[in-house]
């Protein structure tokens, strides 16, 4: 019975989130465009699928993943587990190695499961005629998030200012933009925004909060934030890099082929 209640609660919440979007779509379709939507029936069914899909998805995350993930984030950042003799003294940054590893693993795996990234990757593969592979793009983005969050946890441990990292990141992105193939630029910038969504944000926020509560001299209200920013910045570099490596390999292949024939 409670399961059903939970389901209905989540469904109502999802519908409430979708209502403004639906109102805008229908309003403009009816009053501005004044055109019928072609294939209205499958589109409407698709919308219902999206609603129910999101509801089940959120319900499952709340039931299984979030409680356990948040608990683990707490336990992994605990000084007892990390083997720090005195919890009021900050350990060497290497004492927190398990935290960095967990940050990497959870960043990678939640990004692979992120529905909005999946949507963008599917679209990119469609419109590029397969030149941009959905799976390759998603793995590049997930690696970016993984590396970003690991560095973000190191920042919390070391207590260095967030601004330096972000500005350095911007400089790298700008330099990469000049050398990366033009076809990937917009998509790479987009991938920064889509990674941090339903699955990633709650777990990453819990990790940041847990870590900044446990690290001596760190203020959770100030230092707990900022992990999401890392998770949105590093995928841009990863995707630009992925395209650069692809282009470099193509060039090398093209160079070596004519020689091989002779």
């Amino acid at each position, binding site marked *: 019975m409670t399961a059903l209640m939970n389901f209905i609660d989540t469904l109502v919440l999802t519908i409430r*989130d979708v*209502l403004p*979007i639906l109102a*805008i779509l229908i309003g403009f*379709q009816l009053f*501005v*465009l004044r*055109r019928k*939507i072609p294939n209205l029936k499958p*589109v*409407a*069914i*698709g*919308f219902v*699928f*999206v609603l*129910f*899909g999101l*509801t*089940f998805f959120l319900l*499952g995350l709340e*039931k*299984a993943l979030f409680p*356990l993930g948040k608990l*683990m984030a707490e*336990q*992994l950042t605990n000084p007892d587990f990390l083997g720090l003799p005195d919890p009021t003294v900050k350990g060497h940054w290497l004492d927190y190695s*398990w935290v960095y590893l*967990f940050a990497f*693993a959870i960043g990678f*795996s*939640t990004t692979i*499961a992120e*529905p*909005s990234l999946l*949507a*963008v990757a*599917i679209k990119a593969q469609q419109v590029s005629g397969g030149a941009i592979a959905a799976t390759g793009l998603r793995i590049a983005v997930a690696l970016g998030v993984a590396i970003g969050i690991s560095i973000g946890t190191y920042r919390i441990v070391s207590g260095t200012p967030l601004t330096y990292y*972000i*500005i350095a990141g*911007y400089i790298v992105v*700008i330099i990469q*933009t000049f050398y990366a193939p033009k*076809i990937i*630029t*917009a998509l790479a910038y*987009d991938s*920064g*925004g*889509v990674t*941090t*969504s339903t*699955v990633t*944000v709650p777990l990453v926020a819990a990790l940041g909060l847990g870590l900044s509560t446990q690290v001596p001299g760190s203020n959770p209200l*100030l230092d707990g*934030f*900022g992990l999401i*920013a890392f*998770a*949105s910045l590093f995928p841009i570099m990863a995707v630009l890099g992925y395209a650069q490596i692809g282009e470099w390999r193509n060039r090398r292949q093209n160079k070596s082929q004519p020689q091989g024939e002779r």
Partner: protein
Amino acid sequence: MLKFVKHLARTLKNSIRDLLPIFAVIAFFQLAVLQQPIPNLPDLVIGFMLVVIGLTLFIYGLETGLFPIGENMARDFASKGSLPWLLAFAFALGFGTTVAEPALIAVADEAAQVAATGGMIEDNESSRTEYASGLRLTVALSVGFAILLGVIRIIKGWPVQYLIIGGYIGVVIMTYFAPDEIIGIAYDSGGVTTSTITVPLVTALGVGLASNIKGRNPVIDGFGLIAFASLSPMIFVMGFGIIVT
């Protein structure tokens, strides 16, 4: 009917593959690193099944519902040729989808807490609520503005990198002037604005517009709307922080 079942089965298989890493990570850290049993295994299994079913239905609905709607509207707007209405739609889509976004509501409440503790505003219920809703409105306005600007960019064919680099410079300048307490929140607010339903719609809109306007490339010009939507809140939230103090 058979086609429907086949499509759904293929989506289901992909969903399982996409979700396996998360559960492998959880299991590894819980069993091998923390060396504790998994609490409440039945709940975990049920939860996993719900997530798999949910992702499958979502992706299926995405391909049959959300993408076609976004593309159709983009095509209709392009053929109607009314720029003001298209821009109004872009702004409404950005503003409307952000103002009710649960992740944003959560971040805004936390930010109000930080501001109250830091002595930037009075520490009572009403001033916190006022601060939180002000912040939400700021972010929603900035996303509406970002999508609007992004649509203009697609129509004009401006290269995306100049606008983004301009945005970065804006962020750096604002960081210099903004109060310390707001910076982390501002940087994070860029990431939380784009929800799971907004992203496919906005992507389909951008790609649809670029495909229907002569001389635009759907890959080079069609993407980029999400990037604007995650960059502009950073600037606006720091601006909000400067004005409030």
